[in-house]
């Protein structure tokens, strides 16, 4: 059975992110003839590879005019490829500090991040920043690709030096299980197949590793099997009275059967649900029983994250969008004071006293930035004193919410612990937040 892995690139400008993605697509045979011809002629027009001509793999993802003119990546490009074992969604992210918001965009949904490091330069400021972001966003898997080893004659020693540097940074940041692979994105060494140029490296090629890593969805399914409690954030209530689907309305008796139909539609955030399960509905505070787990394909005998379903409950419950249905045995606490890590994305600084909106799950509530308690030093991740957060800062803050919400600790739940801070008037996303009480 084929599964899906969402992958994002990270690392400093020019360390080879876009080239690596192009190389992966190329070697996985995901570039079709007309795309290949387009890139070949665009590479030639830009003088890539000199007179001999070359194939600029980065053009496969740097698709905007401004990106091609400047030879940089501005925003995330999504590309797709599949092997016999797996389908991949690749998010190629920008490296420049001013586009960090776009890198965060790519990383929040990633199952794995590949951080590129130029073997000649080692860990740079942006490498650290991205590793810190990846750590704080708890991307399940981190792979560091030490790139451009072709320029160092495929020698082991410089790679090992960078690998040690990476290990030291990972230790400081508290990043566990980082995989480090020597590659040449341009020449293809250790990207899809293990390279004969690096006999001293005994680990897997990048693609081999990516085919083997469990995705967040697979991890969620596993946790569900291991008893992780069920949670569903209600998107809307399905009440089709008088507006049944026409093919259903044509069925004799359907109008009567569906007259009182009421189901809570949403995507399962965590765990598994079955008819007969005892559940608790927040903020109504009612405990009831699941009557059915509905989909257009029929009632399910069980459903787990990340499926979209509609729940019918035994009792009349006063609940609407923003309500949360959870396992009755493990009701999360609700918070009015939200202690959080904030990733400041907007160009305007965030100041204490700011009135904002917080969107968590399917609930949006007014909030007040009660306090900014500090800013992360990205070298050490230690928190230093700060009274505001500037663009690209990662800091700690306390938000007072207009209503108590069941935001969970992000460390425990990536799906239920993240939230948005939104500008009240213009609607801009000011910051990404994760609940963390530590």
């Amino acid at each position, binding site marked *: 059975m084929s599964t899906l892995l969402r992958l994002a690139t990270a690392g400093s400008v020019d360390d080879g992110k876009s080239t690596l993605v192009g190389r992966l697509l190329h070697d996985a045979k995901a570039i079709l003839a*007309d795309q290949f011809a387009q890139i070949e002629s665009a590479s030639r027009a830009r003088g890539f590879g000199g007179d001999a001509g070359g194939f600029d793999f980065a053009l496969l993802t740097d*698709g905007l005019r401004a990106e091609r003119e400047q030879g940089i990546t501005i925003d995330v490009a999504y590309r797709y490829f599949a092997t016999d074992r797996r389908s991949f969604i690749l998010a190629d992210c920008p490296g420049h500090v001013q586009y960090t918001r776009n890198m965060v965009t790519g990383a929040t949904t990633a199952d794995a991040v590949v951080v590129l490091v130029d073997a000649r330069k080692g860990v740079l400021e942006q490498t650290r920043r991205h590793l810190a972001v990846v750590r704080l966003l708890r991307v399940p898997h981190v792979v560091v690709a030490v790139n451009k080893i072709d320029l160092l004659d495929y020698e082991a020693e410089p790679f090992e030096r960078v690998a040690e540097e990476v290990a030291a940074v990972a230790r400081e940041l508290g990043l566990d299980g980082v995989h480090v692979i020597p590659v040449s994105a341009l020449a293809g060494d250790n990207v899809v197949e293990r390279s004969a140029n690096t006999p001293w490296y005994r680990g897997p090629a990048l693609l081999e590793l990516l085919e083997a890593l469990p995705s967040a969805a697979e991890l969620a399914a596993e946790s569900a099997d291991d008893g992780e409690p069920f949670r569903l954030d209600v998107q809307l209530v399905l009440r089709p009275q008088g507006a049944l*689907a026409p093919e259903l309305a044509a069925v004799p008796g359907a109008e009567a059967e569906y007259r009182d139909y009421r189901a809570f539609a949403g995507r399962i955030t965590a765990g598994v649900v079955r008819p007969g399960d005892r559940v608790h509905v927040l903020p109504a505070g009612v405990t009831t029983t699941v009557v059915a787990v509905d989909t257009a394909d029929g009632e399910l005998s069980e459903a787990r994250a990340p499926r979209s379903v509609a729940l019918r409950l035994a009792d009349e419950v006063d609940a609407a969008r923003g309500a949360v249905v959870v396992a009755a045995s493990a009701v999360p606490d609700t918070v009015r004071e939200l202690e959080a890590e904030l990733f400041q994305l907007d160009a305007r600084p965030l100041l204490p006293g700011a009135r904002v909106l917080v969107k968590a799950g399917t609930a949006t509530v007014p909030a007040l930035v009660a306090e900014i308690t500090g800013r992360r030093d990205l070298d050490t991740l230690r928190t230093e004193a700060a009274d505001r957060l500037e663009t690209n800062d990662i800091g700690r803050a306390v938000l007072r919410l207009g209503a108590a919400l069941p935001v969970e600790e992000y460390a425990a739940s990536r799906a239920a612990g993240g939230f948005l801070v939104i500008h009240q008037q213009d609607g801009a996303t000011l910051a*990404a937040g994760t609940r963390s009480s530590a």
Partner: protein
Amino acid sequence: MTTLFTAEPTLGTRIAWDASSRLEVLDQLEAEAIHIIREVVAEFERPVLLFSGGKDSVVVLHLARKAFWPGRVPFPVLHVDTGHNFPEVLAFRDETVARLGIRLEVARVQEYLDDGRLQERADRTRNPLQTQPLLDAIAAGRHDAVFGGARRDEDKARAKERILSLRDEFGQWDPRNQRPELWSLYNGRHTPGQHVRAFPISNWTELDVWRYLERERIELPPLYFAHEREVFRRDGMWRAVGEHSLPRPDEPVERRTVRYRTVGDMSCTGAVESDAADLAAVTAEVAASTLTERGATRADDRISEAAMEDRKKDGYF
């Protein structure tokens, strides 16, 4: 409960679900798309779905039916009619909305040409002319959210698009300054005059779409399947002979067995030679194809390196 797809709905049946804990790729993509569609319907006042009768918009409509089952699709559909549409596709469009009881809004490029608001282009393709009627229709319908079937794998500019994409009152897309999109928390807030484009199948590939069409046994216009047709060769593509697509003297007309990989404006959409007569055969053919669907069949995207980006910046979908 009655299901959407049983030929004879049997009330009160319960189907067992494959208890395997892994969701197939298509199941994951479907779950994501349904989530997006429900988010938009919950947060916006007047959504509309761009519906051309093409396979991608057919898939989005199907997903919308699943998202709101047993209720009906709670928004209308909008078609921008270039005046060069394939008659089979228009018939399919009308039959579909009638069957589903959905309201159809039509914006007609021809009306703009007739009264001079737009002029026919030298190359006679009408795809770039769709933008103005589209924006007018969005404003007239006071639509604050517009669903589209665009996929990121279609084109390098589309590869950069967010799932929820903010547009100003001129419909402009600003690729250098897109709103961050975090986790699956979609921020659709906007100011009056702005609207949002929503792309629920952003992450689907052409092959995912065909596999899904096959799995769900979704009906499509007959053009997508092999049929005999009078065609002539232009720009390396087979072009149908029709009222709006006439061969020049040096372009001999032949009868060939062809099908379409995309169905757009007749004046710029080409066919491919194919014997694939049903969904299974088309899916197999797409899986083995060495050309992208746009590369194989869209003349308009060959105009320049950034043709799609330029059209999108101007408010195209």
